[in-house]
């Protein structure tokens, strides 16, 4: 337990935060934009956040009638640090996943990056703009999709909402039709586009939401839980679409999701946010390896054995009749597998990483407890 404890993660966090601090800060970037400096051949980050913070004032209320009355007359509030001095930068075309428990600060970060929420501190430059100014040239380049909220007109077919968006973004009739056809094909949407939104299934609605959000062909996508509540097939279709869109248009995608499958399928890089701070910034693979120094070995035996029979090999994760799951340290894996095959009657053996959900779930639990 202690070897994948919070301390190790904090060390990583510090190391990786240093990596982010090496990148050009927004001021330097802004100066580069202003002077039209072509000297450096390095690609300009599309997102550059430096010591970004957000503090909210949240009112507090005790339960019951007394609490309600006190809350009405003497409102008490406290400051909550939703995001604490996080620094990172994102290159154009990257697909980055924001990981974190509920209330960790990932949605607040996403909202600051999209310009919805004013940061309380730090520097931020997104697509060459200060997002909170919400300039039209910035807004034309970005989009926001939220799994829990919808922008489509409830009583009308999605096509009507698309026409409104087309007018807002100044797209002409022919171009609008072309883009709708292209996106509808990618999303496998057909007659659903002429059915009132209220008559669509959740999966169809989310696909139509994506079409509405991408009609103006943004280069930066903020996706907050885009597959929330969808069934497995619909989730997979949305994922395939996002990967396809990223490939076709070179768009940058910033994604938060509670479904690890979204992150594993789409995001080679993850930012792990915990209690407002940046815990980890790097590849998902490295994160899995560091968080879980063990590998999962699944065995199918000829005859069932008690748990005690496996104590010399590794930690028993589960036993179900003839099927056994063992956690074995990575550096001992080869030797232990050889011993298992030599000493026991093994019908089948499979080695895998433990599910990332479990690994990150354990991390959050440990973090909160400590």
């Amino acid at each position: 337990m202690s070897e994948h404890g919070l301390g190790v993660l904090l060390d990583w966090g510090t190391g990786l935060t240093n990596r982010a601090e090496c990148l050009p800060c927004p001021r330097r970037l802004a100066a580069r934009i202003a002077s039209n400096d072509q000297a450096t051949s390095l690609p300009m980050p599309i997102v550059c956040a430096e010591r970004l913070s957000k503090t909210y004032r949240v009112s507090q209320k005790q339960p019951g009638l007394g609490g309600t009355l006190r809350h009405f007359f003497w409102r008490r509030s406290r400051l909550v640090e939703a995001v604490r001095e996080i620094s990172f930068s994102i290159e154009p075309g990257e697909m980055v996943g924001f990981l974190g428990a509920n209330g960790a600060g990932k949605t607040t970060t996403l909202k600051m990056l999209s310009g919805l929420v004013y940061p309380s501190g730090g520097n931020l430059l997104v697509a060459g703009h200060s997002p909170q100014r919400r300039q039209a040239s910035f807004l034309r380049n970005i989009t926001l999709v939220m799994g829990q909220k919808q922008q489509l007109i409830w009583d009308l077919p999605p096509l009507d909402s698309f026409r409104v968006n087309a007018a807002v973004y100044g797209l002409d009739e022919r171009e609008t039709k072309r883009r709708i056809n292209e996106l509808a094909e990618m999303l496998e949407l057909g007659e659903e586009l002429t059915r009132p939104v209220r008559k669509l299934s959740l999966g169809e609605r989310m696909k139509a939401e994506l079409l509405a959000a991408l009609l103006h062909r943004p280069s930066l996508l903020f996706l907050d839980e885009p597959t929330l509540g969808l069934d497995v097939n619909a989730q997979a279709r949305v994922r395939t679409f996002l990967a396809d869109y990223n490939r076709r248009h070179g768009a940058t995608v910033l994604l938060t999701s509670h479904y690890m499958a979204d992150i594993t399928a789409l995001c080679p890089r993850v930012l792990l946010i915990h209690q407002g701070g940046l815990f980890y910034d790097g590849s998902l693979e490295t994160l899995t390896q560091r968080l879980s120094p063990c590998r999962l070995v699944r065995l199918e035996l000829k005859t069932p054995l008690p748990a005690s029979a496996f104590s010399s090999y590794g930690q028993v994760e589960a036993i179900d009749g003839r099927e056994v799951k063992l956690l074995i340290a990575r550096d001992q894996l080869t030797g232990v597998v050889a011993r298992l095959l030599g000493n026991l009657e093994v019908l089948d053996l499979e080695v895998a990483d433990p599910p990332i959900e479990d690994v990150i779930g354990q991390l959050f639990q440990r973090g909160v407890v400590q």
Partner: protein
Amino acid sequence: MGRYLLTLRRFWATALAGQLEYQLNLLIDLLAMAGNLAGSLFVISLFYGPGRSLGGWSWEAALVVLGVYTVLDGVCSSFLRPNLSTIATHVQQGTLDFILLKPIDSQFWLSFRTFSPAGLPEIGTGLGLILWAAAKVGASPSPTGFLTAALMLASSLVILYSLWFGLATTSIWFVKTWNATEVLRAALTAGRYPISAYPLRLRSLLTVVLPVAFLTTVPAEAILGRISVNTGAASLLMATVTLMLCRGFWRYALRFYTSASS
């Protein structure tokens, strides 16, 4: 500008299409409007009656005030209420996020996104009432008089809109502010009658604090050709100042928007 006009057309086309999905609801809306107007005429006939006067206004002249009030009420039903009452809902549910991230003025979106046809007959009736009553009084406006009347009516609309939008803006901090807009609507009801019909102290209150006088009485005076230059200028000034304040207030408020949690 062309983009805004096209957007407005699509806004209203979808609003109309959305309401036509529910035929019965629209019919009930129209019936309620007719009932409301009949009640309003009945009440004013009890107060005034032909030959009587109140605050120096004859029955027919007072009908011009009622006509202006009816037009404003129709504008409220058709444009202001359907749009501005949703601001608090957008804040509460976090859907304001979508509007703020569109490359279009958010105040324009929130003010004109939808309209309800239920108020249109009321606007038509109000205009008819104004014309009929003005003719009865014997007012025959010159082109300048007509222009002044139109300007004063526009000015009253701007004042009403700005006050309403300003109140709705407070929902950025307090989320639910429907009660405040109810107070505004109640104040507008006071504009059914000429301002001089009220006691002096209340008259000052209804002119300076709640500019009800500028909403109905001043446009009616302009229609009847009784308006002074000072009053006209004051109305225009009031409209300009309230509109600028409401716009500045909205921009200021957005700095404090924290968006609903997900």
